[in-house]
């Protein structure tokens, strides 16, 4: 039904006070409507384009596995620590049920997938956060997976590429979550001190305790166009300053103009850009 097809988009349109007019009768999930420019395209076409709107270039969020497929050389990815998952360490209301439901809905055990792969022939460790999993908040399990990814890269003398996305530290694990910031930043430091490359790709949305830890510590920091990147949440800032923020505030473009991002790379170019950067750090053997 049409109502189901555009249910999510419609809700948003209503909030923004805009009316959407579309009367096509098509089965669910066959069409995609861009939430930004409202252009309608075939879902297949949209997915083939890496979930980037062909009309306006809007980058929709990817799942962790979609990102791995778009980035790693075919067949090269081997997952690390795939069975590591969160528990309920401080007895936080509703947390076990929330974990259970999220796992069922996403097929993931936690918010981060890590592994070893190659990108355009260059071996590396890769980490990807998935915003569908409790907004990719970082608790003990995510922190442990991230830390181990850095440690594995260090042990094997490999560069590491991290696709970040997060709402911040996971409040449901209390202070244990906050400490994952120190743990991951420390692991990134050790990896760096060994002279190894760390590339961060900031994706939508990267905020809070992840911005304030390993996400901001890459030797090279890339970002996808239009990604929301910041420390504090928009509403928190608006509450502090008692005024509305400009539309482009905390966008990837905003961060680049303020000196916190090396380059903005569109999704279609990303694999090549990463391959190139990794190759540039491979000590001349390609000459």
């Amino acid at each position: 039904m049409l109502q189901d097809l555009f249910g999510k988009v419609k809700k948003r349109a209503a909030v923004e006070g805009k009316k959407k007019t579309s009367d096509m009768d098509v089965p669910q999930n066959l069409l995609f409507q861009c939430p930004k420019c409202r252009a309608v395209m075939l879902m297949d076409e949209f997915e083939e384009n890496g979930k980037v709107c062909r009309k306006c270039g809007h980058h929709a969020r990817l799942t962790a596995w979609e990102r791995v497929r778009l980035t790693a050389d075919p067949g090269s990815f081997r997952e690390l620590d795939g069975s590591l998952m969160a528990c309920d360490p401080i007895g936080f209301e509703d947390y076990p049920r929330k974990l259970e439901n999220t796992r069922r809905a996403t097929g993931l055990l936690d918010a981060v997938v890590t592994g070893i792969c190659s990108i355009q022939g260059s071996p590396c460790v890769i980490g990807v956060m998935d915003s569908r999993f409790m907004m990719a908040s970082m608790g003990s399990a995510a922190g442990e997976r991230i830390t181990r990814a850095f440690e594995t890269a260090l042990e094997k003398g490999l560069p590491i590429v991290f696709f970040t996305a997060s709402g911040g530290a996971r409040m449901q694990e209390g202070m244990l979550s906050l400490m994952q910031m120190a743990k991951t930043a420390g692991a990134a430091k050790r990896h760096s001190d060994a002279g190894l490359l760390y590339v961060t790709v900031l994706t939508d949305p990267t905020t809070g305790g992840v911005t304030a830890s390993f996400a901001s510590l890459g030797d090279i920091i890339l970002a996808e166009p239009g990604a929301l990147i910041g420390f504090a949440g928009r509403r928190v800032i608006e509450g502090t300053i008692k005024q509305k923020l400009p539309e482009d505030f905390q966008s990837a473009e905003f961060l680049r103009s303020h000196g916190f991002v090396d380059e903005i790379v569109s999704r279609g170019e990303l694999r090549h850009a990463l391959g190139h950067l990794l190759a540039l750090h491979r000590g001349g053997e390609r000459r």
Partner: protein
Amino acid sequence: MTTWDRIELIRSKNRPTIRDYIPLLFDGFVELHGDRLYGDDPAILGGIARYRGTPVTVIGQVKGRNLEENKRANFAMPHPEGYRKALRLMRQAEKFRRPVILFIDTPGAFCDMESEERGQGEAIARCLYEMMTLKTPILSIVLGEGGSGGALALGVCDQLAMMENAVYSVISPRGCASILWKDPSREKEAAEMLRITAQDLLELGIAETIIPEPETHADPAGMARAIDDYLSQTISNYLKIPIDKLLQNRYDKFRKIGQFLE
């Protein structure tokens, strides 16, 4: 005493601040200003002094003792330049092999437009990153409020001590209640659930020490004596540990924090 009772206590006007403690604990304190990049943040105070004869670097967030002081120090909520000043002074301490003593006392890093423009997240991240391998002992003491990442930026240390009534939390109980129940007035319940007291943090393996407070905290000299007792037993021990071992222990201390299934 409930967690909420402690929060009310540490937020009360007569709670001693870093400005009370410095003259009571240290000799010849010299304040050093500025991050050499943008400005000087009055929400973080730093400098050098002697502690029982040993030169040390002292840094901490500045809670005001009255409204005027609070306004000047932005209610102890630092901008990025505050964290960058702190890191500059820590690197200086490393150069001269001075132990670093950090006093944590903040509701959190400030959340305004300018802090975002100047990279609040990067400033905090850089502190965590550099402190993990800073080649000199680091001791952090939570005096009252330890508010999330803005507190942790001064909390990557060899030993974390909590004043008996201090709290240290990933999110303010009010923020937690707003998100969880859409009802900020349930902050007292959230405070209990988040496990943020000194005793909680000891049990979670995050803090190593609780510094007992005298009968009333409105006694800066008594509070300073308690901190002095702790520091006098601690600093000299850390100065004896070879740097490599110190850094390995520091990494391991954070490395093992977390609970998960596998």
